């Protein structure tokens, strides 16, 4: 069996098209991973700094403030510093006061702004007053209230049932009373739609469909199937060897893409902040007690599983259709449709299943943070918990169906 798997991998790796497709997409992934360090900032035609310098400076400031509780003292300190500049005037970036006194608070300031649904570069710095005006509460109390309002608004959007609300309230109780600021830019990027597992999945899905989908089809197009199918191991064992080789290649390619993405972001932004609460980085209203690093690890697991599923899907489709281009087109169309089409939340089950598609689930803000729950008996599962179960089931069904098709293969015509 090992020998057969080795030969199947050899067949794929000996093709020029494999390497061309791999290097093109890998170069694109590497470029995106290191893009954070590429480029220069100019303000009104005046050179400010390179992005590499910017990242290094922000990292130093962020790490220095890491570990501070987001309490009234710290938030007031951040907001007070920001009152010294006018962010509506882009020249503030060049000012000495910004560079020496305000910039070091950019991390927590950006966090507070995003909690409030604002953009730190557009909103004026009188937030403290706004928050204090909010029913006369102090900053921390008003942030808590803000979070509650956001959470309830999201619950309303998702049309959660009472049981689901209860589930999330139980999760909410496990969260700390006050969040702690941690510099976590790398982990933020790695869970972001533009540079995280979502983007890696997009590229790797195309690559897998192109390379792995041909493992079965090649035998038909080369007419080697008639040789293989009449040998002792040419049916069950060869099918298993091909599936294992395809899955192995899918996982190895995913690993390489994942590694370069991780490495690029670590080099650009540093490894700090793995344990930062996900609510401090994204999804302020989210109730699950997870760190942003844990979210990244879960997404990594999902990414590898998704690659496995795409690999199996393209292999079985190409065997069923006897056409590699058709199977490629189906996978491409599926990815594009999942990316472009949003199912209204009112179509509850359909939209929940739609969010279970790998491309939607790996979009942290969409599928991962979907609050609706799948119920299996008495067990309640979030989308990111249930989707892998679905994927494994679908993968198993596809493998069995593919085996049925392959082992009953006939040589007709020609």
């Amino acid at each position, binding site marked *: 069996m090992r*020998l*057969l798997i080795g*030969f199947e991998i*050899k*067949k794929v790796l*000996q*093709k020029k098209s494999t390497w061309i497709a791999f290097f093109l997409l890998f170069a694109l992934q590497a470029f995106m991973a290191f893009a954070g360090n590429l480029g220069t900032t100019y303000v009104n035609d005046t050179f400010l700094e390179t992005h590499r310098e910017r990242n290094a400076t922000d990292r130093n400031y962020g790490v220095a403030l890491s570990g501070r509780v987001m309490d009234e003292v710290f938030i007031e300190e951040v907001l007070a510093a920001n009152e010294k500049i006018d962010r509506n005037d882009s020249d503030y970036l060049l000012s000495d006061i910004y560079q020496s006194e305000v910039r070091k608070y950019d991390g927590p300031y950006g966090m507070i702004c995003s909690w409030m649904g604002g953009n730190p570069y557009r909103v004026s710095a009188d937030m403290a007053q706004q928050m204090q005006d909010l029913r006369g509460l102090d900053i921390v109390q008003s942030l808590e209230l803000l979070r509650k309002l956001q959470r309830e608004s999201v619950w309303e959007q998702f049309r959660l049932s009472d049981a689901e609300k209860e589930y999330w309230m139980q999760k909410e109780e496990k969260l700390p009373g006050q969040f702690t600021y941690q510099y976590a830019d790398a982990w933020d990027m790695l869970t972001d739609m533009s540079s995280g597992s979502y983007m890696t999945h997009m590229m790797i899905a195309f690559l897998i469909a192109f390379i792995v989908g041909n493992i079965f089809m090649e035998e038909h*197009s*080369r*007419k*080697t*199937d*008639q*040789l*293989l*199918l*009449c*040998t*002792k*191991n*040419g*049916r*069950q064992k*060869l099918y298993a060897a091909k599936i294992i080789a395809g899955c192995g290649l899918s996982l190895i390619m995913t690993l390489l893409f994942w590694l370069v993405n991780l490495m690029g972001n670590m080099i650009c932004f540093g490894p700090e902040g793995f344990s930062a609460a996900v609510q401090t980085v994204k999804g302020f209203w989210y109730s699950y007690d997870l760190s942003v690093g844990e979210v990244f690890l879960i997404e990594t697991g999902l990414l590898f599983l998704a690659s496995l599923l795409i690999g199996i899907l393209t292999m079985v489709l190409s065997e069923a259709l006897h056409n590699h281009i058709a199977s490629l087109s189906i996978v491409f169309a599926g990815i594009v449709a999942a990316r472009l089409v949003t199912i209204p939340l009112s179509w509850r089950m359909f939209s929940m299943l739609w969010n279970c598609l790998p491309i939607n689930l790996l979009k942290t803000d969409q599928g991962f943070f979907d609050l609706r729950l799948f119920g299996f008996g008495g067990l309640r599962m979030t989308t990111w918990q249930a989707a892998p179960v679905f994927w494994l089931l679908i993968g198993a069904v596809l493998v069995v169906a593919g085996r049925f098709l392959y082992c009953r*293969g*006939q*040589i*007709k015509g*020609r």
Partner: protein
Amino acid sequence: MHLLRWYAAFAYIRNRQGKQTIKMVCRICLTRNRQGKQTIKVVHNTEREENMELVIDRLTKQYKNKIAVDRISLRFAQGIYGLLGANGAGKTTLMRMLCGILNPTSGTIAFDGIDVATEEYRSELGYLPQDFGYYPEFTGKDFLMYMAALKGIGKREAARRTEELLEIVSLKEAAKKKIKTYSGGMKQRLGIAQAIINDPKILILDEPTAGLDPKERVRFRNMIAELGKDSIVILSTHIVSDVEHIADYILMMNQGKLTFQGKREEITDDLEAFYLREFGENEDVYEDACL
């Protein structure tokens, strides 16, 4: 040669002890005669079953309105069977069914009671299709090793057998060259090598001499003649001279039906003339036979 004799003896001892059933009982090897010339020799193991039988019973294949093979019943024992017929006579369809890669519409195929659809049947089979492809980036050696793995031969034995066969089919020099650099004749020889790599009891060859030069053709015939002593060799062709000298039995097909079956010696006159007489009125057949 010395090594091979030792190998055969080893296999016999293992069998006597009852620890292992020996299936590989006939080996082709390259030997040198007293004059130092290389010759092909088949080494027989006396355990090879004497009464092997491939039985096909009322075998039929129908494609919509066309009957490609029409209720053929035959019994094959050891020996070489030359299957003659014009293009479209149903030879390839019959052979594909014998190889288990095409399901018959009706009828059965069994080798010593083993059904064609089983792994056991396939392990006794060697097949050279009429028109098939290779993996262009594989070397000749890779290809044979791959086919050996598919036929369930262990890695060490596969390597030894590959070396042996590459020499037999005169591809030793090109063993490490990619198949895409091979000529048509070299590819055909490689195809023959893969068909016999597992010492098959049933060897099915569909137009095996296509692409071979006259010298290679003679060499190939001699090899087949040796293999026919211990195996069932079914050789399909529309070139009469390919089977004239080596076939023990002649089968003729026309429009899916078996029009003649008999021993070669029963055909007293020239085989080609006999063949043309069988298909006499059909000019296409005459043209094919003359090719």
